[in-house]
């Protein structure tokens, strides 16, 4: 017995030690991490972000150097805070607050102490940097905008949030990342890959050489320059035209699907989101819940399409064989489609497809639509056939363009109506308002633009995209794939000829451009809003779709002006000017241009504001009265007199 005790002790204690070692070395991973944290310092070399050019090679977005002061809280020693603070023009309270914030993030890892110093501040600090242990300067590149337009197209650059750091291992605290627009969508192309250098530190945090002879170090990969399909001049012009209005303009090159201009109004100068004022300005934009300058109306606003939708109603009716060019309907200033239900129309007389278009006759398209639906025994089959045609135009779904935000829009199907009218025998009469774009269909301006581009192409489209080329790379295959609609090519010709006469004989008379054959369609969309819990009819939206020239189209465009009264009043002239600008590169109709540039809809918008807010606003410029030749047209009012 006495011989056994000591060997037993040895064995038991050795087993204990081995278990403990196994736990420390093999099971517990956190120690490895801690080791890397305190022994290895990582230095990053941030490559310059790629430049952004427009379709003609004009430089739109370049870079400027910026300097962040970084801090590693645990390394901060006794420093002369007074000198430090006065050098950076911050208060002592600021200093303490910022250090505390950095500590909360991590005492060992670097955080941004003060972001985006300019060159002068940087020079002043750099001279004395030695005195301030724990602080160092990280050079980064910030955007330098060469144009004042396109804020919604470019997006902006901001510091990564903690959420992003957790999700994406590439980013560290203080790194910059593209948000919104092209900066977000082409983040990886533009940013390149930062270089990493591992440096061995000792316990005094001194650098004692590169870790493992730099075996794990990587060299920074430069960001790539990109060319956008945007025409900088057209984009700027579109934004100017939309000053003091709300809405969007989307212009597409039909042959390629390239987006020529993507305007949202109101907008802002992209340069205000750069530098130390960024956060202040951003908050201001973000908090403007009335004008919503950060909301890209061209991509996100789902509107009832109104009259331009008649193009689709006509095309589908032709494809389904329920009408042909000669089919005629009689209109008596409206259309009585059911007992007690009447759709008003400004038109009267006999309408065929051609004058139906240029006069925007409600009766004609309502009848054509009902015939389309009634072709099928069950209205649900009719609706589904119809909505499948619509879907072939890319409606009711995300379009797949290369910008990070979007909306599906809405294409109703038989299911929609089964839900809306449970246990009800709904039929073509019930849903007839779809015929003129006032029903359940919702479209975003880019969907409208794509629709008119498809018409221009006589039945096909390329997914709209904003990228023209990336240095050394072909653009995504999905932007080089032709989408063909379910409408035969031959049916587009009569429609296009109708749209052409919209300018000659119809609702857009007087908006034509000399020497350019434009095809277009006006639209006036009703809209309602809840104000103080009451459903209130607001001023109609003004919209317009067009493409030009008629043969060999170069531009397809959709313009949307919120509360712009009717199509030809605001959206029509703006469309016309945009087309002239793009094709002729100069504007001949200076009067029209002046009226559009100076025109303001702010009084209209302010009407809906609560009185308290309204009083604080300065009185805007008086609205410029449009000329008499502008004809108010295609007014649609659905009078729903309930039948008991």
């Amino acid at each position, binding site marked *: 017995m*006495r*011989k056994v*005790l*000591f*060997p037993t*002790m*040895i064995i038991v*204690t*050795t087993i*204990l*030690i*081995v278990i*403990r*070692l*196994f736990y*420390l*070395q*093999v099971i*517990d991973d*956190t*120690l*490895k991490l*801690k*080791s*890397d944290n*305190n*022994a*290895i310092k990582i230095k990053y070399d941030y490559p310059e972000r790629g430049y952004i050019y427009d379709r003609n090679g004009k430089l739109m977005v370049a870079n400027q150097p910026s300097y962040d002061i970084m801090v590693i809280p645990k390394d901060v020693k006794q420093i002369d805070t007074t000198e430090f603070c006065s050098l950076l023009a911050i208060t002592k309270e600021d200093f303490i607050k910022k250090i505390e914030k950095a500590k909360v993030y991590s005492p060992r890892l670097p955080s941004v102490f003060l972001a985006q110093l300019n060159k002068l501040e940087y020079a002043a600090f750099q001279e004395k940097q030695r005195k301030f242990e724990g602080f160092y300067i990280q050079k980064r590149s910030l955007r330098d905008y060469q144009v004042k337009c396109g804020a919604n197209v470019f997006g902006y650059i901001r510091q990564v949030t903690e959420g992003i750091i957790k999700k994406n291992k590439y980013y560290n605290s203080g790194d910059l990342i593209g948000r919104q627009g092209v900066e977000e969508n082409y983040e990886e192309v533009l940013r390149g890959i930062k270089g990493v250098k591992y440096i*061995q*530190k*000792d*316990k005094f945090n001194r650098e*004692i050489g590169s*870790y*493992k002879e730099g075996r794990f170090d990587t060299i920074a990969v430069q960001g790539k320059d990109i060319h956008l399909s945007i025409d900088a001049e057209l984009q700027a012009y579109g934004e100017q035209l939309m000053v003091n209005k709300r809405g969007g303009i989307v212009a597409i090159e039909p042959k390629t699907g390239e987006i020529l201009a993507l305007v949202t109004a109101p907008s802002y100068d992209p340069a205000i989101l750069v530098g130390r004022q960024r956060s202040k300005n951003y908050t201001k934009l973000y908090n403007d819940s009335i004008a919503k300058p950060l909301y890209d109306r061209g991509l996100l606003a789902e509107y009832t399409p109104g009259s331009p939708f008649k193009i689709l109603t006509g095309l589908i009716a032709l494809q389904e064989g329920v009408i042909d060019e000669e089919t005629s309907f009689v209109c008596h200033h409206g259309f009585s489609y059911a007992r007690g239900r009447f759709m008003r129309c400004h038109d009267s007389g006999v309408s065929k497809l051609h004058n139906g278009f240029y006069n925007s006759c409600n009766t004609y398209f309502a009848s054509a639509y009902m015939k389309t639906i009634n072709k099928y025994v069950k209205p649900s089959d009719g609706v589904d056939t119809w909505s499948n045609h619509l879907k072939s135009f890319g409606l009711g779904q995300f379009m797949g363009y290369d910008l990070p935000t979007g909306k599906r829009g809405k294409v109703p199907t038989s299911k929609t109506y089964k839900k809306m009218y449970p246990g009800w025998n709904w039929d073509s009469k019930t849903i007839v308002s779809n015929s003129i774009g006032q029903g359940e269909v919702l479209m975003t301006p880019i969907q409208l633009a794509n629709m008119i581009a498809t018409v221009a192409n006589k039945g096909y489209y390329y997914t709209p995209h904003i990228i023209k080329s990336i240095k050394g790379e072909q653009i995504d295959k999905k932007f080089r794939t032709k989408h063909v609609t379910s409408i035969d090519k031959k049916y587009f010709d009569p429609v296009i000829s109708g749209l052409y006469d919209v300018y000659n004989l119809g609702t857009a008379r007087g908006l034509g451009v000399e020497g350019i054959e434009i095809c277009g369609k006006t639209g006036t969309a009703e809209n309602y809003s809840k104000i103080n819990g009451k459903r209130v009819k607001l001023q109609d939206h003004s919209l317009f779709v067009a493409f030009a020239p008629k043969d060999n189209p170069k531009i397809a465009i959709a313009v949307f002006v919120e509360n712009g009264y009717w199509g030809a009043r605001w959206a029509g002239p703006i469309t016309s000017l945009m087309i002239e600008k793009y094709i002729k590169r100069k504007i001949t109709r200076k009067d029209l241009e002046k009226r559009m540039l100076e025109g303001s809809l702010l009084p209209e918008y302010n009407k809906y504001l609560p009185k308290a807010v309204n009083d604080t606003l300065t009185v805007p410029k008086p609205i410029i009265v449009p000329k008499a030749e502008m004809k108010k047209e295609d007014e649609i009012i659905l009078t729903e007199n309930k039948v008991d």
Partner: protein
Amino acid sequence: MKNQSVTNNIDWISVVIYIILVILGWLNIYSSSLSSIEGETSIFDVTQIYGKQFLFILFSVPLVFSVLAIDAKFFEKYAIIIFAISLLSLAGLFLFGKTIAGQRCWYAIGSFTLQPSEFAKAATALAIAKYLSDVQVNLKDFNRQVQALIIIFLPILLILPQPDPGSALIFSIFIIVLYREGLPAWYVWTGFIAILLFMLALLLEPIVIIIIALAVILFIYYRSRLIDRNWILSTIIFVLVSGFVFSVDYVFDNVFKQHHRDRFNILLGKEVDLKDVGYNTNQSEIAIGSGGWFGKGYLEGTQTKGGFVPEQHTDYIFTTVGEEWGFLGSIVVIGLFISLIIRIIYLAERQKTKFSRVYGYCVAGILFIHFFVNIAMVVGIFPTIGVPLPFFSYGGSGLWGFTILLFIFLKMDANKVNEW
């Protein structure tokens, strides 16, 4: 016989393990000290500590041969004198000792320092062996027990106030040797139970422990055969346990110094202050833990290079093994130590004289308690107590002390055939 080589009959297994451990120690000292200097220099550079260690290793060669050249009987004959000289050298520290880092443990001759407590271990082992080998000594006798314990406590009393609690702790292992030679078991159990109660008293409320103790005592009492039941003894034990538990709190709060309390608190996971008192243990665990299965490779340890682990070339030398050679390397080093200790116990058991057997046991005990306390501290399962890892840790006194300790025994073992 006179012409016999000094290495005749020597146990080569022990010698080879000894040599491997010394060389591994030196390599790790080299790795651990490279960090704090600029660039690499030769491992033989005597201006650096690894170069000095090389000198210490070189000097242990003649030391080994001297020990082996001395007649084995010499150690038995002069054990008491050697012990007395050793005690004197310890006492002399109070007059002539040099204070380094608050500890008065060294004699300084120029830049050269010597730590007598390292040699006192071998001397005490000799004294105990000498005392127990006396035919008249029977450890069943209470007076003998007291005398044997006095031999152990004399060096402890001289070392504790230096203060060097680590070295003092080493001498407690001799209790195990005394037990092997007949000391009643209750000494050992009392020791174990006292340590257990001490730990529990720090973790739990005293009243909880007392209730548990009462339950255990009652359980044992009623499970015993009727004639063995001794209510007086049971009551005494209960009172002693209760008194001990309450006094632990008192001692911990009033007698211990703050840094002692901190060390226990860290171990028991009560307080973790990683910057201050917990720094050593934390850094040591990080270094070892970052090694993984296979380690980062020799001279590649980032913690070692960064010099994060304090005292890495002395008490924390094992962290270098853990970081650079990983779990497998650590197992190999631990295996070498355990093999050596078991081998010595095996040799001790086959000794023909009681003197050399007891001495052999003492050698195994001293090596074991150093090994255990050091590594257990480094991996964070034992309070921070400064004890070197034999043959590994930097230091001349330590290396020579252990070398002498080991080779005296190997000489006795080699000589056993002549002992009639």
